[in-house]
C-alpha cells in the first residue's frame, strides 16, 4: 500500500519549454479515443461544444415551427394548419425557444469558457457537468416524442389552468410538458450549482472577486437565481400533474383550490427566468465588446452591480404578468413601480457599452457588427417593455401582437444577437480556425434586416388589435399587409442564420488558422493554445488585474503571470482557492472520465417515461436503478482523496 498524501507544497515553475510536463498532463486529462471516450468524457470543452450544438439544433426546430406558423399567417383565411395544429406549434415553439434553446446556448458558452476565463482546468464537478448535459439532451428528446404521437403540448408556454386541467385538455399533451419541464429543471438547477462552486472556488490565485471577468458575473448571478427560482416551476408542474391524475385540488376552485396559484408559482419562476436567459448574453457582450474596441470595459464595477441588481429586481416583478387578473390596487402600483425601476440598471449597462465604443478604437469585425446591432435592438425591446410596465397600457396591449413583438425584441435582440456575436468572437478559440468575415457580414445584414422587417410591424398589428395565438384572421381586419411583411422578414432572418451555419461548416475545414490570441484580447482563455489542450493550462496562472494579458499595454507593470505558477502533476489535479481573495486553499483531485453520468441520466429518462405511462412497477425499477447508480457514483475513493485509513 502506498503512503496516502494528505498535503503537499506544490512546485512553482514556468510552463514554456517543458514538453515532458505537457505529455504527462495529457496522459491524465485526455479522453480515450473511440466510442468509450466519446460517451464517457467529462472535459468541459467537449461538453460546452455539445451544449452549443444541441441548443442550436433546438433553435432550428423552434425556427421551423415558427416559419410554418408564418406561412399560415402570411395571408388571411389560410388552411395550411388546423387550429389544433396551430396551438401545438406555437406552444412547442415557445417552450423550445425559452427552455431548450435560450438558456442552454448560454450554458454552453459558459461551460466552455468559465474554466478558461478563471484559469483552472475544468468545472468544479466534472461528472455533474456531463450529467447535466445528458439530462438536457434527453429531456428535449422526451418533449419532442410528443409530436410523434400527435399530442404536443397545446396550452401555450405558460400553460394556465383551467385550460391545462384534465377536464379541458384530457390527452397526454400537457403531461409531456409537465414531465419534460421537471426533467430539464434537474439539469438547469444542478448546472447552476456547478457554476456557483466553480466561480467561487476555482479561480486562479490573485483573481479576487473584484477582478472576476465580467462574463463570470453574469453566469454567477443567474446561477444563483436558477437555484432559487426553478423549484417554483417544477413544483407547479408537479402539483398540476397531481391534479390531473390523482384527484388533488390545488388549482380547482370547486373544492377550495386556487387557479391563480398556478400563475403565482409560474411567474415566481417565469419572470426571473426572463432575466436568466438574457443576463449571461449581456455579460458576454460586456466581455467581448471591449476587445473589439481595444480598451477595457468602461464602468466595470457599475456593470457588475447592475447585473446583480437586475436579477434581484427580477424577483420582484413577477406580478406584472398578472396586471389583468384583478389584483389589489396597492399591489398593482408597487409592482408597476418595480417594473419601471428595473429599467435603470439596464440603462447603466447600455451607457457603459456606448462609452466603451465611444472612447475605444473599434475594429469593425463581424462580432462588432452583431454587438452594435444588439445594442440597437436592446433599446427598442427595452422601450416596449417599459411601456407595458405601466398598468393602463398593459391592460390595453395584453394578449395582442404588441406583446409578441416585445417578446421577440427581447429574446432575439438580447439573446440571439449577443450569441451570434459571441460565436464569431470565440469560435477561433474553440476550433483553432477563424470564421469568414465576408460571409459573416452578409449573414449579419440578413439577420438584422430580416429581424426588424419581421418583428417591427408586429407592434403595429398589435396596436391595431390583432390578438396573439390566433390561427388565422379575416381580410376585413386590415392586418393582411402587415402580416405578409412579417412573414417575409421571418424568412430573411432564417436565411441569415443559415449563412452563419454554412460559414461554420466551411471554416471548420478551410478557415484561416487562428493562433492562440487572434483578437489580441485580454483574458486568460487567450493565453493558451486554440483549441486549448485537455488540461487547459500547463501551470496554474497567477492573476494581478482584470486584464491579465494587457497590463503592459495599459501602462502598468506586468504583474500577472499566465505562464508561471503551480505545477500540479501528481494525477488529475487543479487548484481550489478562497472565495473572495482567491488565495490558494486546496489541491483538488479531479475525477476521470466515466459512463456513470450517462447511465444515471438514462435511468432518469426511464423514470419520467414510466411516470408518463403510469407503469408503476417499471417506475419502481427505475428508482432502484437510480439508487444503485448514485451509490456507485458517490462511493468514496482514495484516488479522489476522499478517504483515509486502510482500504482493501
Amino acid at each position, binding site marked *: 500500500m502506498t503512503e*496516502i498524501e*494528505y*498535503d*503537499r*507544497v506544490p*512546485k512553482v515553475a514556468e510552463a514554456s519549454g517543458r514538453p515532458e510536463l505537457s505529455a504527462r498532463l495529457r496522459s491524465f486529462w485526455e479522453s480515450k479515443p473511440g466510442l468509450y471516450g466519446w460517451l464517457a468524457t467529462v472535459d468541459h470543452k467537449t461538453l460546452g461544444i455539445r451544449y452549443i450544438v444541441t441548443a442550436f439544433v433546438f433553435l432550428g426546430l423552434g425556427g421551423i415551427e415558427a416559419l410554418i406558423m408564418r406561412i399560415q399567417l402570411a395571408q388571411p383565411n389560410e388552411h395550411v394548419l388546423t387550429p389544433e395544429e396551430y396551438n401545438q406549434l406555437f406552444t412547442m415553439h415557445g417552450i423550445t425557444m425559452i427552455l431548450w434553446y435560450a438558456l442552454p446556448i448560454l450554458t454552453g458558452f459558459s461551460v466552455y469558457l468559465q474554466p478558461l476565463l478563471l484559469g483552472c482546468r475544468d468545472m*468544479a*464537478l466534472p461528472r*455533474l457537468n456531463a450529467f447535466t448535459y445528458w439530462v438536457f439532451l434527453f429531456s428535449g428528446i422526451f418533449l419532442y416524442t410528443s409530436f410523434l404521437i400527435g399530442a404536443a403540448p397545446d396550452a401555450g408556454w405558460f400553460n394556465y389552468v383551467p385550460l391545462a386541467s384534465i377536464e379541458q385538455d384530457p390527452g397526454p399533451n400537457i403531461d409531456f410538458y409537465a414531465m419534460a419541464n421537471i426533467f430539464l429543471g434537474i439539469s438547469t*438547477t444542478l448546472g*447552476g*450549482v456547478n457554476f*456557483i*462552486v466553480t466561480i*467561487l*472556488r476555482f479561480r486562479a*490565485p*490573485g483573481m*479576487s472577486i473584484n477582478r472576476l471577468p465580467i462574463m463570470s458575473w453574469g453566469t454567477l448571478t443567474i446561477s444563483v437565481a436558477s*437555484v*432559487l427560482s426553478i*423549484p417554483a416551476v417544477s*413544483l407547479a408542474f408537479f*402539483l398540476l400533474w*397531481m391534479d390531473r391524475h*390523482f384527484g*388533488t*385540488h*390545488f388549482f380547482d376552485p370547486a*373544492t*377550495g*383550490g*386556487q387557479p391563480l*396559484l398556478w400563475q*403565482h*408559482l409560474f411567474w*415566481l419562476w417565469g419572470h426571473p427566468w426572463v432575466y436568466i436567459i438574457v443576463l449571461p448574453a449581456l455579460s458576454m457582450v460586456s466581455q467581448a465588446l471591449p476587445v473589439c474596441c481595444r480598451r477595457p470595459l468602461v464602468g466595470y464595477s457599475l456593470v457588475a452591480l447592475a447585473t446583480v441588481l437586475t436579477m434581484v429586481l427580477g424577483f420582484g416583478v413577477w406580478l406584472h404578468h398578472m396586471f389583468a387578473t384583478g389584483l389589489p390596487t396597492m399591489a398593482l402600483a408597487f409592482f408597476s413601480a418595480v417594473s419601471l425601476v428595473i429599467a435603470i440598471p439596464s440603462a447603466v449597462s447600455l451607457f457603459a457599452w456606448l462609452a466603451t465604443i465611444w472612447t475605444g478604437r473599434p475594429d469593425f469585425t463581424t462580432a462588432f457588427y452583431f454587438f452594435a446591432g444588439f445594442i440597437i435592438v436592446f433599446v427598442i425591446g427595452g422601450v416596449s417593455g417599459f411601456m407595458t410596465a405601466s398598468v393602463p397600457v398593459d391592460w390595453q396591449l395584453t394578449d395582442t401582437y404588441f406583446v409578441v413583438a416585445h417578446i421577440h425584441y427581447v429574446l432575439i435582440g438580447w439573446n440571439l444577437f449577443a450569441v451570434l456575436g459571441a460565436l464569431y468572437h470565440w469560435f477561433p478559440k474553440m476550433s483553432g480556425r477563424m470564421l469568414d468575415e465576408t460571409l459573416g457580414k452578409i449573414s449579419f445584414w440578413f439577420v438584422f434586416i430580416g429581424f426588424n422587417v419581421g418583428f417591427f410591424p408586429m407592434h403595429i398589428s398589435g396596436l391595431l388589435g390583432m390578438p396573439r395565438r390566433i390561427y388565422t384572421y379575416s381580410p376585413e381586419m386590415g392586418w393582411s399587409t402587415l402580416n405578409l411583411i412579417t412573414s417575409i422578414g421571418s424568412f430573411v432572418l432564417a436565411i441569415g442564420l443559415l449563412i452563419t451555419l454554412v460559414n461554420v461548416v466551411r471554416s471548420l475545414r478551410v478557415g484561416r488558422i487562428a493562433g492562440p490570441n487572434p483578437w489580441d484580447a485580454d483574458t486568460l482563455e487567450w493565453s493558451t493554445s486554440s483549441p486549448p489542450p485537455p488540461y487547459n493550462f500547463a501551470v*496554474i496562472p*497567477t*492573476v*494581478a488585474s482584470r486584464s491579465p494579458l494587457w497590463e503592459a499595454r495599459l501602462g502598468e507593470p506586468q*504583474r500577472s503571470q499566465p505562464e508561471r*505558477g*503551480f505545477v500540479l502533476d501528481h494525477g488529475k489535479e487543479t487548484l*481550489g482557492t478562497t472565495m*473572495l481573495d*482567491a488565495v*490558494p486553499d*486546496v*489541491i*483538488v*483531485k479531479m475525477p476521470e472520465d466515466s459512463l456513470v453520468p450517462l447511465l444515471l441520466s438514462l435511468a432518469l429518462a426511464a423514470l419520467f417515461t414510466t411516470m408518463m405511462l403510469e407503469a408503476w412497477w417499471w417506475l419502481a425499477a427505475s428508482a432502484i436503478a437510480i439508487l444503485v447508480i448514485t451509490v456507485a457514483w458517490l462511493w*468514496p475513493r482514495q484516488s479522489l*482523496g*476522499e*478517504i*483515509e*485509513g*486502510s*482500504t482493501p
Partner: protein
Amino acid sequence: MSLVEEVQPRRLPVGSVGHHATGWWAMLCGIVTEGALFGYLLFSYYYSAMQPHTELWPPELPHLSLALPNTIVLLVSSGAIWFGERGAKRGNASEELLGTAAAIILGIIFVTVQFFEWHNKPFSIQSSAYGSLYFTITGFHMAHVMVGLLILLAILIWCWRGYFGPHRHAYVSIAAIYWHFIDIVWLAVFFTIYVTPYLTGRS
C-alpha cells in the same frame, strides 16, 4: 495583503478535506435550492389559506399528541449526527458509529410515527384543497427524510469500513449538514401546519 504578487509555495491540503471539499460547497447550494422548494410549498399553503373558501380551513384543529413528541425525536437525531461527526473528526470510530446509528434509529422512529399520524387523519389527499396541501407538504418532507436515511445508511457502512478520520471526513460533514437541514425544514412545516391554526383560529 490579499493581492497575490507572486505565488508562494506553501503547504496545501490535498483532496476532499472538510470545508475545503468541493462536495461541501455543492451541498450548501443544494440546500439553498431545496430550501426554496419548501418555501414555495409553504407559500402555496399560506396563499390558499388566505383566499376565501367554502369549507373550514383546516377541517379540524391538528392534534399535537403525536406530532410534538415526534418533532423532538427529530431534533434529538440532529444532536446524534453531530456527535457522530465529532467522532469522525477526532478519529474516534466508536463515537462515529454510535452517533450515526442513533440518528438512523431516531429517523426511522420519526417516519413510523408520521405514518400513524397520516393514518389518523379524517381527510385524504383527494377530499379538499387542505387535504391535498397537507399530504403533499408532509409527503415532500417525508421523502426528504427517507433520502436522508439512505445517505446516513451509506455513511454508516463507510464509517464501519474505516473510510473516515481526522484528515478526511468531508462525507460525514456533508451528510450531517443535510440531516440538520431536513430537521430545520420540519420545524417550518410543523409551525405552518400544526401551530398557525392555534394562533389564527379556523376560518
